[in-house]
């Protein structure tokens, strides 16, 4: 019996072969070491993300999330829902808030859920993986299993938007949250003074309005270099993808020479806990984190 159990909501991008599959792999390795049991919510569905707003309308979006709640409540009673993806976490938490705030929406939602043979009574807590690490385990616990501290490696902790606003992590400020830096330090790494840690990466506009988004991404990477960081670390799949995969195009457009690996906190922790490059899914990085690969090989 694991010391903690949660209803796991991996989200679309974290599935095998999807854009954040490396996130999933490293989270699994990390949780194994920390003895945290994550049981996937059976037949979970997409949260709709923020971007679906213009097509979905309000109720359909709520209902999509409500379905996940109902499935969790039914199959994993009493367990908090834990999401690793910022968008999934935000979408679910927002839905929870609105449904709990409006009896009308709750009633309509259940009417709709009935069509899928489901019913929603109590909405479980919806939490981000990071919250579990910080609040349920704590930095000291996270430091304990460290076998290979990431000595001398400099990371810019890029928190981004949706794990930070509007809900954020308890006790952290919207403008200068420290938890990611603390996570890095708890596994022996060095967090740099990075003043773009909560700047938006452009989110979904990276697809629809690449120029606007890439202008913002440029600021972020630049600041990371200025801060003396060798790598970027983030808790959000979209932040990860946007800041990583467009560096080449930005180099073309702005004549910059960006080549900065972007990792998930879970990858760093896996490595520090003695995990292999494979377990940390370093192969999943488009911009290879050579330094970490060597570190893992040692």
């Amino acid at each position, binding site marked *: 019996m694991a010391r903690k159990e949660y209803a796991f909501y991996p989200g679309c991008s974290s599935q095998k072969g999807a854009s954040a599959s490396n996130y999933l792999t490293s989270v699994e390795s990390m949780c194994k070491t920390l003895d945290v049991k994550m049981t996937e919510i059976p037949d979970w569905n997409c949260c709709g993300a923020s971007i679906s707003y213009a097509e979905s309308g309000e109720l359909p979006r709520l209902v999509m999330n409500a379905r996940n709640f109902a499935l969790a409540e039914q199959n994993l009673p009493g367990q908090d829902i834990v999401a690793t993806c910022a968008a999934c976490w935000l979408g679910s938490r927002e839905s929870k808030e609105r449904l709990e705030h409006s009896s009308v929406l709750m009633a309509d939602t259940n009417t709709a859920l009935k069509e899928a043979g489901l019913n929603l009574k109590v909405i479980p807590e919806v939490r981000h993986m990071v919250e579990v690490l910080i609040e349920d385990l704590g930095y000291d616990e996270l430091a304990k299993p460290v076998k290979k501290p990431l000595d001398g490696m400099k990371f810019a902790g890029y928190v981004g938007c949706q794990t930070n606003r509007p809900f954020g992590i308890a006790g952290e*400020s*919207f*403008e*200068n949250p420290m938890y990611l830096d603390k996570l890095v330090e708890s596994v022996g790494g060095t967090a740099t003074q990075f*003043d773009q840690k909560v700047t938006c990466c452009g989110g979904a506009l990276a697809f629809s309005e690449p120029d606007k988004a890439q202008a913002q991404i440029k600021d972020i990477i630049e600041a990371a270099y200025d801060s003396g960081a060798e790598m970027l670390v983030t808790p959000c799949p979209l932040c990860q993808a946007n800041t990583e995969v467009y560096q080449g195009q930005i180099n073309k457009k702005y004549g910059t020479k960006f080549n900065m690996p972007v990792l998930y906190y879970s990858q760093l922790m896996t490595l520090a806990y003695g995990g292999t490059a494979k377990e940390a899914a370093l192969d999943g990085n488009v911009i290879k984190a050579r330094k970490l690969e060597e570190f893992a090989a040692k």
Partner: protein
Amino acid sequence: MTSVVATNQTILVVGGGISGMTAALEAAETGKQVVLVEKNPYLGGRTVQLYRYFPKMCHPTCGLEINLRRLKANPRIQVLTMAEVTGISGAKGDYSVSVKLAPRFVNENCTACGECNKAATTEIDDAFNYNLGKVKAAYLPNDMAYPQRYVIDPSVVGTAEGQAIKAACKYSAVDLDMKEEVVTLNAGAIVWATGWQPYDAAKITPYRYGEFKNVITNVEFERLADPHGPTGGKILRPSDGKEARNVAFIQCAGSRDENHLRHCSRFCCMASLKQTRYVDEAFGADGKSTIYYIDIRAIDRFEDFYQQVQANPNVSFVKSKVARITEDKNGDPRLWGVNTEGYIRYAEPHDLVVLAVGMEPSVKNVAIPIEVLGDSSGFVMADPANGGIFGAGCATNALDVNRAVQSATAAALGAVQVVSKVARGEA
């Protein structure tokens, strides 16, 4: 052991700022017995920490001097400093109040000669200057401090330095064996005048107060402008001591904001308008002030002052709540936002940013050791249910000095009514 003469015909005034002093004096000059308790080692409260008053640009110490003269001339007022009310029991017409007295380590023999200060070596934060400077561990809180007696910081008691300080005093005024004591006194009515405190600017995270050295608060700016402040009245910015010629004032820093203070703090618009005068006096045409505001609340005849400042070409107004502040490499705070009058985006660097932080009660009604009604901000609400307890000044509302004195004068009458009834045997 401190002895206080008080009966159920005595009026207890809690708080020795301008409101408390006013209430005490008005009651005493009407023939009533008053005990005035103040938690600082001196009277005058926040007003003494101001450089000038709007709209006259006159000096708070002027009025304080008159009030101190009235106080010294009046045998009916007993003053307890370094004193805090810890308990209140009883009811209108007959309260029993316990007051905790912190040790000053200096007794009545003190002639303020200052030898103890010379003997002291340890430096502590200068609370009077909002910790912008340091003072020796044996200090006179400010030039007009009443009582005119030094204070010794507990940190040096029981040290060799403490002994040296004691030895330096020719008048055996230093008493390091003083202990905290609690006195219980009787009162017929209580005037609650514990005043206000500036809202904690660090909570307004987009402005990075406490992280960026050149982002300060309006109360701190008063100390910078004051010739008796930490910079000798020169407007120098904290990061590098450079003259702050280009100053930004951010209004509603915490006020009118459901994430912070719901209420409008009323005085901050006038305070910032006044402070642009400091910049003007210091640098003339080389000085520049910019006020970022939502509404300029220069109410009633203060409008004159607003119009005078508007007429100054070196002062500009931007209708905008500043979104965030970043820091340039050279330490300049850069303000980001949109001027909503005609939608003009700005990313403006300044030498110094002054946050016009609002007022919150320094003791919220719920923290008063007996039930007193308050509003949603914790200000004391006038209500018969409060019995013989009357709020005065900024304990009751966000007020400027003039309004606070008005409020305190009214509160004094409430208290006088109670003790007069007691005297007539009606209560």
